[in-house]
């Protein structure tokens, strides 16, 4: 495996009963890039994420990850070890800790950096206190970075959808990952917020130096931030390349983008039933 490759998936397949959700997919994510998976609904994008974070075990194929301790076969690890290697993720349907505050959610993100033992926590020794303050400082940086000051003490259960998306991103960042998996980061966000998200993702890549693997349906965002795009369909690889290349791939247009500009066909003002 190349030195500049962070994650490499080889011939990944997974089958659920009769459904071949992922079919012999291979790709490499290079260090420091934003790599995007696109594809029609049910193409198997989320399933790929779930394979990387070890929620599913592939029927065949392997995933390798260039960790600090050298090259690791991810598919051999138990799920809770994945975060420790520096792989963090967000979820398509948002999986936050609902009955905790935003701050607590972010602090849980610091879990892999925990250095205190049970006894020192029970007694809350100076060491634990110092560790707590250090964790807080790190979390505050993330809060600053994503403009979450306002929601710091709010219960997650009462937050609007858009804010939750950001909180989830924040929680992932708190783990200080090397690879960040984002599952549809912009879904449910409006244009303006999606733009913010675009900026954040490029900041994450450029300023924090984190490699990003993303699933996204908003092609504007995809074009703006990704370095490379992999299009999937029915579990299999369809096309790989720069955003522009993939977007002009006829198969991708056919299966995923649809023919251009049918939006205006929806226009209805000539119905004229509306009172002025």
């Amino acid at each position, binding site marked *: 495996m190349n030195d500049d490759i962070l994650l490499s998936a080889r011939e990944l397949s997974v089958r659920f009963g009769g459904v071949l959700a992922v079919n012999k997919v291979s790709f490499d994510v290079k260090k420091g890039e934003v790599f995007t998976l696109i594809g029609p*609904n049910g193409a198997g994008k989320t399933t790929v994420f779930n394979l990387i974070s070890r929620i599913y075990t592939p029927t065949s194929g392997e995933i390798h990850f260039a960790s600090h301790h050298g090259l690791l076969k991810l598919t051999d690890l138990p799920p809770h070890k994945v975060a420790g290697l520096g792989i963090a993720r967000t979820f398509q349907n948002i999986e936050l800790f609902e009955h905790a505050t935003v701050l607590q959610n972010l602090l849980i993100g610091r879990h892999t950096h925990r250095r205190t033992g049970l006894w020192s926590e029970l007694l809350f020794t100076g060491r634990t206190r110092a560790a707590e303050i250090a964790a807080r400082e790190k979390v505050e940086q993330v809060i600053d970075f994503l403009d979450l000051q306002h929601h710091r003490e709010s219960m997650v259960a009462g937050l609007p959808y858009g804010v939750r998306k950001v909180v989830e991103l924040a929680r992932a960042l708190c783990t200080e990952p090397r690879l960040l998996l984002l599952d549809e980061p912009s879904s449910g966000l409006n244009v303006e917020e999606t733009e913010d998200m675009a900026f954040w993702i490029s900041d994450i890549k450029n300023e924090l130096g984190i490699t990003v693997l993303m699933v996204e349906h908003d092609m504007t965002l995809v074009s703006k931030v990704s370095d490379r795009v992999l299009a999937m369909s029915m579990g299999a690889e369809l096309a790989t390349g720069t955003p522009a290349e993939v977007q002009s791939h006829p198969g991708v247009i056919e299966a995923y983008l649809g023919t251009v500009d049918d939006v205006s066909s929806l226009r209805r003002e000539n119905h004229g039933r509306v009172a002025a």
Partner: protein
Amino acid sequence: MTAPVTDNAVLKLLNVESAYGPIKAIRGVSLQVRRGEIATVLGSNGAGKTTILKTISGIIDPRKGSIEFKGENITAQDPALIVQRGLMHVPEGREVFPLLSVRDNLLMGAYTRKDRDGVARDMELVFNYFPILRERAAQDAGLLSGGQQQMLAISRALMANPDLILLDEPSLGLSPKLTKEIFEIVVRINRERGTTILLVEQNANMALNASDYGYVLENGRIVMEDTCARLREKDDIKEFYLGMKEAGVRADRRWKKKKNWR
């Protein structure tokens, strides 16, 4: 600001105020949706769009104000009763029945209907709209992919053949192609069946194209309303909802002023 009074309004909200515990989410919203029209509510995150829809369908009780549907007062009624009167809500976040099969999910959409033939026909219809649902008819809905669940949620509402559909972000998590198809379907249902639709959508471009009339919601208040044609021309809308503006410098964006119409 009061909405222009017309008598063919299917849905009428008058000064509705809803809250989650001590937090007020919408403050005095008045709006109306006319028969056969597609209306849309725009607004940023947390503006209270979802709350309006939930209040209409009786999931939360308003503190103040009244809601009228087809001339009847449905304020704070039992949600089941409201659905029986012909109002269907496609909720934010899909909310499928995870352990029921796709087919049973669809059947539940038609719970209030008595005409078996009609139900069978509509089932066929939604299967044609979304062939994947036919393929997965026997699978547990909880195992569908996010987008597939969204298709199911929309189809389930169509199964009820209602007079008014409340759509909360129907394009959430759908591929660009499907997003367009969804809007086509919405418009088609509206034209062919005369179903009235109240639409909440982050994809303002689509929403404004598909709808007749639009409201803009900020911090729980309606700050602007007009026909969609006119809304599309307004600068504020262009900038904040359609993303059409001079590509600003980076620093600019970070220090942008929060939009404010008051």
